[in-house]
């Protein structure tokens, strides 16, 4: 089945083909049975079965959160959660996608805020409806400790909430499971933005560079390069010094500093 010595019939693009002898397994899409090749993801298995996604597919690479899916195995009560583009089909899987979940998002003006947790509490008072059941964490396809960051927000630790929630892809599965009806992922987004703007130190070297650029310091250099003959540009290109890989940040200086 796998060996090949001549140019094979090859699957192209994202379309799967069923090579000779490959096994198929039954899955149940919203209760309806389809035979699909094993080893495919839920997303590709459904496409193999003839579905064409409109909702429920985005990046197809596990990072956009468009394809959250809930499933259960025949004969078992336990619910499982995953991303359709990342989860492999299993025989007798009953599945449904939840491509959208209505979660409340509070509007705010970041530039008028401060780095204090009260801001988050005021915008998302429902955080305090959390009963710590941990269903959110169990539902997270990215293994984010959702309860952990909700607790951190309640305790006023914005940095902790920001860091714990960093891998969130905002698929909404946490919110879909929440007894307290908390829109966890929106609150986490707010925490990360407050952290980055008001708690994490801002970059001083960047402020200076912005001032230099706005003062027009580099315009003559860029004009000169833009007007140069190709040979001269090549010569400049070749003459560049390379910053050593291991130079500590902000320490190394080139010999020629006339273009800094």
């Amino acid at each position: 089945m796998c060996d090949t010595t001549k140019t094979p019939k090859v699957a192209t693009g994202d379309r799967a083909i069923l090579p000779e002898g490959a096994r198929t397994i039954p899955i149940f899409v919203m209760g309806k049975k389809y035979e699909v090749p094993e080893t495919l993801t839920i997303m590709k298995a459904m496409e193999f079965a003839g579905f064409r996604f409109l909702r429920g597919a985005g990046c197809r690479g596990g990072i956009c959160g468009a394809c959250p899916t809930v499933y259960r195995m025949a004969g078992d009560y336990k619910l499982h959660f995953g991303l359709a583009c990342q989860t492999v089909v299993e025989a007798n899987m009953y599945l449904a996608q939840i491509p959208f979940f209505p979660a409340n998002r509070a509007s705010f003006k970041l530039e008028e805020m401060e780095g204090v947790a009260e801001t988050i509490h005021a915008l998302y008072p429902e955080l305090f409806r959390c009963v710590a059941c941990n269903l959110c964490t169990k539902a997270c396809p990215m293994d984010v400790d959702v309860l952990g960051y909700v607790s951190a927000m309640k305790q006023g630790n914005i940095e902790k909430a920001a860091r714990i929630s960093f891998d969130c892809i905002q698929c909404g599965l946490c919110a879909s499971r929440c007894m307290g009806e908390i829109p966890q992922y929106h609150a986490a987004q707010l925490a990360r933005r407050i952290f980055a703007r008001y708690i994490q130190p801002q970059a001083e070297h960047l402020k200076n560079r912005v001032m230099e650029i706005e003062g027009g310091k580099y315009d003559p250099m860029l004009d000169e390069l833009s007007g140069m003959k190709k040979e001269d540009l090549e010569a400049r290109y070749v003459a560049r010094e390379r910053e050593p890989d291991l130079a500590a940040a902000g320490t190394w200086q080139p010999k020629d500093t006339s273009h800094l």
Partner: protein
Amino acid sequence: MGYTPELQELIKRVEATRPARVEMARRNEHYPALSMAERETVLSKHHPDYQADAKMAVRVGPNKGDVFQEGVARLLESRSIVRPGLVDLNKIDHETDVLVIGGGGAGTSAAIMAADGGCRVIVANKLRHGDSNTIMAEGGIQAATQECDSPYYHFLDTIGGGHFTNQRDLVAALAKDAPLSIAWLEKLGMMFNKHEDGRTVVRHCGGSSRKRLQSSGDMTGAEIMRVVRDEARNRADMITVLEFSPAIELLLDSEGKCAGAILFNMETKEFSIVKAKAVVLATGGFGRLHIKGFATTNHYGATMDGVVMAYRAGVGNKSLHSTQYHPTGVAYPEQNVGLLITEKVRGLGAHVLNIDGEQFCFPLEPRDVESAELIQEAMEKGKGIMTPTGRVGLWLDSPMIEELHGPGTVKKELPAKFIQFERHGIDISKQPMLVYPTLHYQNGGINVNGDSETILPGLYGAGEVIGGVHGENRLMGNSLQDIITFGRRAGIGAAKYVQGGVEVKDLTLDHVVKFEKELAEAGVENPAVAPIILPDYSTDEVAERRWPKALTEGVPGV
């Protein structure tokens, strides 16, 4: 799940040759790299960009006579989804100052800046807001923020990397605005990797003279997208986002200005007309065209729509014949197909091997050469490995990294990849990976100037849809910068243009009528209908069971 028994059998051949190969690597002996002449040969025979077959010159439009990949040319020579003469353009559904087409990083930045400039904005997006290539970018974003660096060096690195084929005003704009973009993102609350004192962490990337790549964990694009999308949502009074509503045609007015677009509600199948004083095109790239059947790293909606619509409106493109293929995309397991495996794996010493466990190339040739060598081995020599889902791949021998650099190196140096494979039962520190080249980036795109303006008054372009910034080869980290620099410039420019007083006259689709007439005159038979909006992954069997021949035309609901 892991490897099937059949694949496990084949892995034994890799293991059999490994000790000798590791010994060789320890002696610092490599499989010989190709000479310049040999490179030429393998590129011209096997790199999809160079192969003469499956290419054609377009017969109509602004790039008439230029040669493109067939898949691209067919879309440039396509006809509209609607019959232009039969559309009633007097029924306006939405009126706005600025219409942004495409809500990825470029479009969303443009929307925020246009709103800042006092404009009402509509963002029309094909999928959900943010389902885009932007959200998938991992590595980082370039900007000359450090003291030892400056826009001067960013300019030089970029144009040298692009083999001096870049459009210079665009490179100058990119280099100049890059630090401004970073400062803007920082102010919006983006979590950059930083040192204790707030200094951004920077790294080198291929072709950089200074450490200039700033990042946000290994999900830089996702963090950018989350932040700008969240900010756009805060401005709901000025920015309206329409999801699942791709634009399918640009509208002009009787004076020839760009004046809106036709949108298609994919869920209800209704069309609507947006009248706008200015339009920003930010529809991203074309990976989902699967040129020559390649898998892609791109998101579901990357189908070149913007280039197609602009083309009919008279806006041509540059460098679109050039595509970036990444030599090592995942070929197995199926759920990871097309996804990137970073060059670092080969940098750490992993060999690329055929079905017999033999080396056939130097593992660190330039990306295009390496890709061509893999394709040659699998397709011409038939020495690829067939996966259970009908794909072909070659081995990337990651376990030898452990032998060369010590146990635990794979997990330490490649944490994300390790987990990605572990999830599917493959331990890449013990088992090799199956890889094949994958379609990664649309190097070219529509023509704009340094202010993001096209030749069509009122039409701006930003992001992967535009051409010229990167010339024929893009440096890592420059396209995330491209989308913020030109997204912001497009938004600012559009707002200024609108504030200058724009009066939209009667809307028209005459440009489409004229273009389709040209198609007929040029003898283009059976032109494709485009934009194609989404790829179709139905299997042949399913397509057949839809009874295309027996089906009565006009069946309700089918």
